[in-house]
């Protein structure tokens, strides 16, 4: 059996191939042999996924910060709102949850690793770890502190467990002192982790 894999995470893996890796390779090779998919289809899909990164999500956040009407439609119907920016997220049922002075949102998928890949790219390894997945729902404030995020006791921490068909993006609070920044400069401040909810967006004027 060939053991080549299109899965990037296998690139430097010297550990023995696991049962599920063999299963993936076997199914993939069967699909190719039976003509259901071509190797090129798979390579293109991997390329497409690799080309997506958190910059797309940051672009959505920055627009919501500068355009109140866009923000309103984003919170009401994210898939349609995102489309108006020319972004194609496919059939994803996106739900954007807004951080406010009263509520801080945190995203997790306890059952697997559901993640808004079309706007943030591939999830970080810690997001898929058993530790994050189990602790984010059990002791979110301790998890947030470990990410350096100290949420005041007055603020409600709201965890979203992405267990079914919806995918979540956190709309972080716009930091103070950014009134003079352009939309692109604002987007540059928005990092992946703030859209998962483990950090807040920071800005320090120089």
């Amino acid at each position, binding site marked *: 059996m060939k053991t080549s894999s299109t899965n990037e995470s296998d690139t430097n893996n010297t550990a023995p191939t696991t049962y599920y890796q063999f299963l993936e390779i076997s199914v993939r090779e069967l699909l190719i042999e039976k003509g259901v998919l071509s190797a090129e289809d798979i390579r293109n899909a991997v390329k497409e996924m690799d080309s997506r990164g958190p910059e797309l999500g940051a672009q959505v956040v920055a627009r919501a910060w500068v355009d109140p009407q866009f923000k309103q439609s984003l919170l009401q119907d994210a898939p349609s709102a995102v489309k108006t920016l020319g972004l194609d997220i496919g059939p994803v*049922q996106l739900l954007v949850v807004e951080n406010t002075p009263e509520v801080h949102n945190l995203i997790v998928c306890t059952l697997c690793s559901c993640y808004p890949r079309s706007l943030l790219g591939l999830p970080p390894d810690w997001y898929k770890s058993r530790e994050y997945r189990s602790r984010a729902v059990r002791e979110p404030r301790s998890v947030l502190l470990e990410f350096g995020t100290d949420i005041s006791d007055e603020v409600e921490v709201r965890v979203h467990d992405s267990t079914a068909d919806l995918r979540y993006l956190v709309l972080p609070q716009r930091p103070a002192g950014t009134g003079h920044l352009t939309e692109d400069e604002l987007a540059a401040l928005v990092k992946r982790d703030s859209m998962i909810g483990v950090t807040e967006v920071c800005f320090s004027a120089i």
Partner: protein
Amino acid sequence: MTPLFQTGNAVRVRKGSPPGHIRTPFYVRGCKGVIERVAGEYRNPEELAFGRFDTPVVPLYRVRFQQQEVWPDYQGNPQDSLDVEIFEFWLEPANPEKT
């Protein structure tokens, strides 16, 4: 399929442990929450997992739980909450007076 519950309804998660593929996390089974929204209708992933693609769509909800309901020893703001997506067949009406 008309959803059985509406936003604001009190519900309880069934305490089931059926065999097979389950999309309701163990930690909320038996817990009481409130429907945050009706989140649409989707094919049942517990059937899809076995290649049964022709079963009807079922309503999906976002259910909001208070953390202290889920974890009685929870540390933090008593308002802290947890929203979980749960399919209708996992939910039953809860009497808000009764805990």
